[in-house]
């Protein structure tokens, strides 16, 4: 049964300053595209009752370069990412991932900041950000801090953020090497990932997986093996030992392990 709407308390902010002031004084869950909120609301599993709508904060919508670093505002939608020439040039794997998130309606409303904040292990943009060594910029009324995405998640649906903080941007330094992305969903479109992987073929490769652990994960041992010149057969073995996927209603641990290994091999073959 659906969550009772009349019990929900929604405020909206018209500037970042106002939003941070509200979050300083009140416990509210920020919402932007609300694409994940609506799913929980429809199933009656929505726990928060108090929300802060930040959709109007246009200052968080820019895509720009700061020096050599790509800075993507947290309210940038998947559609904007798909359409952005600068993202297409510097981070094509993010464009690929964005195209496979939900349908067009979701891509028009869903934001990269929301994907990071929602902290789902199946978030499609997260392996891309992890493989790109992205930095999450969070701000509160008291100041700003930068957290590498590899240190951002502390467990299943848990992050280092404090309740008064807002994600304002994602920063990505230039990515050297070929980029590669693959989503394996429950069907060809409008699907939740069973395995999702992003890879960067650099001298020290960077590889990240989603949907195979409580959070998005990098696979440092596999990366090191490949960086040290191990064969792909050996690297597959390292990966098999390094990951510990589980059974759930969408897939099985065994399938996820095997497909992760196959995709590692495919990544290596296609970027070599």
């Amino acid at each position: 049964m659906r969550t009772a709407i009349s019990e929900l308390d929604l405020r909206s902010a018209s500037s970042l300053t106002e939003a941070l002031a509200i979050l300083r004084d009140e416990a509210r869950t920020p919402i932007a595209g609300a694409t994940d909120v609506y799913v929980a609301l429809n199933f009656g599993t929505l726990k928060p009752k108090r929300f802060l709508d930040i959709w109007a904060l246009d200052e968080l919508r820019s895509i720009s370069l700061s020096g050599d670093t790509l800075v993507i505002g947290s309210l940038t939608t998947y559609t904007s990412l798909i359409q952005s020439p600068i993202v297409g040039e510097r981070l094509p794997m993010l464009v690929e991932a964005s195209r496979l998130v939900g349908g067009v309606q979701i891509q028009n409303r869903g934001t990269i900041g929301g994907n990071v904040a929602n902290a789902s292990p199946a978030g499609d943009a997260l392996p891309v950000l992890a493989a790109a060594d992205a930095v999450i910029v969070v701000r509160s009324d008291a100041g700003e801090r930068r957290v590498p995405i590899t240190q951002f998640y502390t467990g299943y649906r848990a992050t280092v953020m404090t309740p008064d903080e807002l994600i304002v941007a994602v920063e990505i330094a230039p990515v050297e090497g070929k980029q590669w992305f693959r989503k394996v969903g429950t069907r060809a479109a409008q699907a939740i990932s069973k395995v999702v992987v992003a890879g960067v073929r650099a001298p020290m490769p960077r590889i990240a997986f989603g949907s195979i652990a409580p959070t998005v994960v990098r696979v440092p041992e596999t990366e090191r093996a490949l960086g040290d010149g191990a064969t792909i057969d050996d690297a597959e073995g390292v990966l098999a030992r390094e990951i510990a996927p589980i059974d759930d209603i969408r897939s099985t641990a065994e399938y996820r392990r095997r497909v992760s290994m196959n995709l590692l091999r495919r990544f290596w073959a296609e970027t070599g």
Partner: protein
Amino acid sequence: MSAVGNSVARKDGIGKATGAARYADDITFPGMLHGRTIRSTIPCGRIRSVRLDFDTTGFTVVDHRDVPARNAVDLIAQDQPFLVEQEIRHMAEPILLLAHENRERLYAVPVEVEYDEGEPLFDPEKSQQVFKTIDIVKGDTSSALADAELVVEGTYRTGHQEHVYIEPNGVIAVPEDGGIAIYGSVQCPFYVIKALRCLLGDAHPNVRVIQTETGGGFGGKEEYPSMIAGHAVMLALKSGRPVKIIYDRAEDMVATTKRHPAIVRHRTGVTRAGRIVAMDVDVLMDGGAYVTLSPTVLSRGCIHAAGPYRCDNVHIHGRTVFTNTPPNGAFRGFGAPQTEFAVEVHIDRIAEALGMDAVELRRRNALRPGDTTATGQTLRDDCSALMVLEEAVRRTDFDRKREEYKGSNRSVGLSLFYHGAGFTGAGERNLKSKARLELTAGGVRIAVGSTEIGQGTRTMHAQIVTDALGIPYEDVEVAQPDTSRVADSGPTVASRTCMVVGKILEECAHEMRDRLGGLSPAEYHSRHGPLTVERMYEPPDWIEWDDALYRGDAYATYGWGCDVAEVELDPDTFEVRPIRLTAVQEFGRPIHPALARGQIEGGTAQGLGYALLERVVMHNGAMANGQLTNYTIPTTLDTPEIDVVMMENPYPGGPFGAKGLGELPMDGPAPAVVNALRQLGFDVREIPATPELLSAGSRLG
């Protein structure tokens, strides 16, 4: 221009395209309450106590003690209660009903049910409680098997399937002068009447059911609406106010019926030359916790279990059994998709064992006019098995593709299938369906209980009447089914709405034409006033059926189909992408080619979902993935180009030669896909053939 055979404008098209069509949840009545169903949260046990820990002012509360007459949904048996008295047999079983004018308040209040839990039974193979057993015996199967040059055995499994009609179940019960009216999303308004008569007894004689615009059914609104209607009626009677019960998707998926899971075992004897000499088939269907329609689903499944093949010695043994799961029910195909999957995958395995081409094996054994089926029915000239097979093979260049794709990640697979139209055996004779035509000031009105559920009933019936009466299509209107105002034309199921009800309407139109005596409807009406013609269905006089022995003419006619699935495998992820599906189907004659094509495309897509994607995950006897995010039906990207070929071989007993079509397309896609997977080295014996199944399964050498 005749209406029949042309894709005229749908009678319901403008309303649906503009949003003017009103579905159950669009309709409100003054003073209306909303209803909520409190359901069991265990699969097996007894209720110890039910506690309402809230102020019940403003609430209407109904439990089994409020049942006016009989606490039983009147289907084949009367074993399923509207509301549990003590014994819980499955998850999400209705226990208590609440109504309140505020939906949020209604859902916010807590109801605590305490149970004494029992040990649930989920494995149909371990069930000792058999709802129905069927044996179809032809010739001497055991001797023929003993003498056969080769015997091939196999066990095949099919899973649950959820209907996923776009509009979930919902009804509104409205007290009215001297009775009660039920508005709802239903396939069979007169089934609801029957169920309510049993629930209410003689004290409430004036009950009528009005079908609201219905967003799909696929069998899922055949029997379950009787349950919901009973709930709404009890709440309405107790409160004296209209009560609406609309299920959301999650409740609809967890509580209502699904396709029966089946386990089918085959032992088939063949000669080295590829002649099938003996078929021994064992069919087990999981009925769930109550009988509901399981005996008839089993019946249709068993009758189709030998496939469209000639064989002198056949034994089909079927049984449907109890488990502690929500009752399984009617679903497009009604048992045949399960058994035809099994036999068609088995045929490819027999061909493999013989070292024979699977098309050639089918060619040699396919039923021809004059052959007899497993029930001993002699087929007439409207048997088209060979015709659809040859056309599908030719059109797809099947033999060349099969060779060309060897060693690649692509392959083609084929299935040959058939589907009996109308009720089984003496069913149509017993139903005594009626149809009525009423003269209006400017034309005629069709007054039947057959429902438009998206498949085109209104349009197709109007076309038949248009041409049979010889008046413009625009002058034929179709009454909204209201059981107090329309003839009981029988349920909208079993691919019978065109072939059977359409036939009665054709005869009504002929009679009316005679009675008009050359006048137009308008002329007749202005001179003589109203005129009504009502007729009853007369099945062909040659039909003979012995229900005790399961012998005789099971169906007046059959539709025939051959599907060719071309698929591509991703060897890294085990994802199977259908590239193209060729659906060659013969169903007499299409009354409305665009609607018929829609039925074939839709049924084929539903069949592809059944084959590859649609997996009901059961945890402790309840659907654990009852959400559209996790129970995945095909999107357009999962659905290949479907090449629809409609062949014609008229059935003399149908209107303008038409047979039934609705279910036929559901039977073919799953075996065609699995036979294609076999060419890729996957020895698949069950569906859905998910990537997880393929990655874990054994590979052929």
